[in-house]
């Protein structure tokens, strides 16, 4: 393991005193205010907060897709200055390449980074199998259901073997049934192939089901309100007493929005 300049040996991604403002003609909107957090290797962290509170902005800053107004993001002690293959993202809107097959999408990262054909085919087939899409390798994206599409999104991010995987409300576009199924699936996938995950959601049940640690954010501008380590054994039961207690407590502490 690489030694870190800052924080513990285990810290994969860290941000210090992040603030983010958006300036437009109508003035300046502060979206993030003084956020500092650390994510350990193979930890499943959930950023949880009310809708429109700035969770996605925080993820964009952490992943390097967007810059911070103040503060710095470190990945393994190195400053993050832009997007890169060390930080994978699963997007809410999936953002798959419709002109490529499932295999083409999943293999995109390794192929772009110059792996040879044998290597990226083998890798992509492994991850396609892992997310449960074996047999659909040659299907085009518009032939898949919503749940299957997001499986492709997860496989594509996994296949590039990033240090951190960001998942921005990955299941919010799915219907309720599929959403439960995908929550179980993401736990199965993550247990098989451990990764450091930063998962964003505004669904409390989903947060408690998947998280090692929940970071509760306030309303916009987002600050860290409280952190909850979740040490319930996996697989978790949505209706167990402990689950419901946690769910209740965190819900009570969440800011209300209109």
């Amino acid at each position: 393991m690489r030694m870190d300049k800052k924080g513990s040996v285990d810290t994969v991604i860290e941000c210090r005193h992040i603030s983010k403002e958006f300036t437009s003609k109508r003035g300046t909107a502060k979206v993030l205010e003084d956020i500092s957090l650390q994510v350990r290797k193979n930890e499943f962290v959930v950023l949880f907060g009310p809708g429109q509170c700035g969770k996605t902005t925080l993820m964009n800053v952490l992943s390097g897709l967007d810059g911070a107004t103040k503060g710095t993001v470190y990945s393994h002690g190195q400053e993050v200055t832009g997007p890169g293959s060390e930080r994978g993202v699963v997007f809410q809107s999936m953002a798959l390449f419709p002109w490529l097959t499932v295999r083409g999408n999943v293999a995109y990262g390794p192929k772009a980074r110059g792996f040879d054909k044998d290597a990226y085919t083998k890798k992509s087939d492994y991850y396609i199998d892992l997310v449960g899409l074996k047999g659909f390798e040659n299907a085009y994206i518009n032939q898949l259901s919503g749940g299957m599409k997001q499986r492709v999104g997860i496989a594509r991010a996994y296949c590039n073997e990033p240090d951190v995987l960001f998942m921005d409300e990955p299941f919010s576009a799915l219907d309720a049934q599929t959403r439960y199924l995908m929550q179980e699936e993401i736990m199965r996938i993550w247990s098989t192939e451990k990764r450091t995950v930063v998962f964003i959601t505004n669904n409390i049940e989903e947060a408690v089901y998947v998280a090692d640690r929940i970071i509760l954010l306030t309303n916009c501008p987002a600050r860290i309100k409280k952190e909850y380590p979740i040490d319930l054994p996996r697989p978790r039961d949505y209706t167990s007493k402990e689950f419901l207690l946690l769910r209740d407590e965190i819900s009570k502490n969440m800011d209300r929005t209109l």
Partner: protein
Amino acid sequence: MYAIISIVSFLILWAIGVHYSEIKIVMPGPWEVIKEFVDSFINPVGRHTMPLHILYSLMRVVPAYLVGSVFGIVLGILMGWFRPVNSIFRPIYELIRPIPPIAWIPISIVWFGIGEGSKWFLIFLAAFVPVTLNSISGAKSVDPLLIKCGQMLGASKKYIFKSIVLPFSVPYIFSGLQVGLAGSWATVVAAEMIRSTEGVGWIIISSMDTNDVTQSLVGIMGIGIVGFLLATIMRKVEDKLCAWTRREV
């Protein structure tokens, strides 16, 4: 099926109209035109039979269309994707764009003579202008999230251009190719006005000298049918290359 009903009823209306009115002085009935059209396959109109006229016209359209399309795709994609290229070429392109190809006829004769050169030039323009326009809008409309996605997956700028910008633009390019093909085929008539002794355009132009409305309509029919076939072939090619844009679950 509906297509057949629509065409047959059009022909019947035409026949009735001609039969029961004074239009027949300037307008032959449909059967006469169809008979003449079929006849033109065996007996030459002017120097050649219809298939040869069509072939001559295609020999003017196809090479000029292909060259115009290639230029249009390359320039359009570069203009749509690279800001400096756009800044340099956009103003010139915008000035040329609204000029109809036939406006270039006198200049094309001065530049390229009355041979094939001037005809190729006009058809080139008819293809180049719409193909460029659609290629620009293809490269401009690339979803920025997909570009971010490419960056996030570790793709270089060059690889993003090749693997995201180009395939994303393909459906746009194809609609430009369709418009350009129709335009090129239509322009051949004008191009063949510049002195020619063959081609479907010539059939129409020469009918003007003899006031032969039937011959004119035969030429129009030839242009219509070939134009339709070209568009159909193009659509088939597009279906093959853009299978991913079709929705099927």
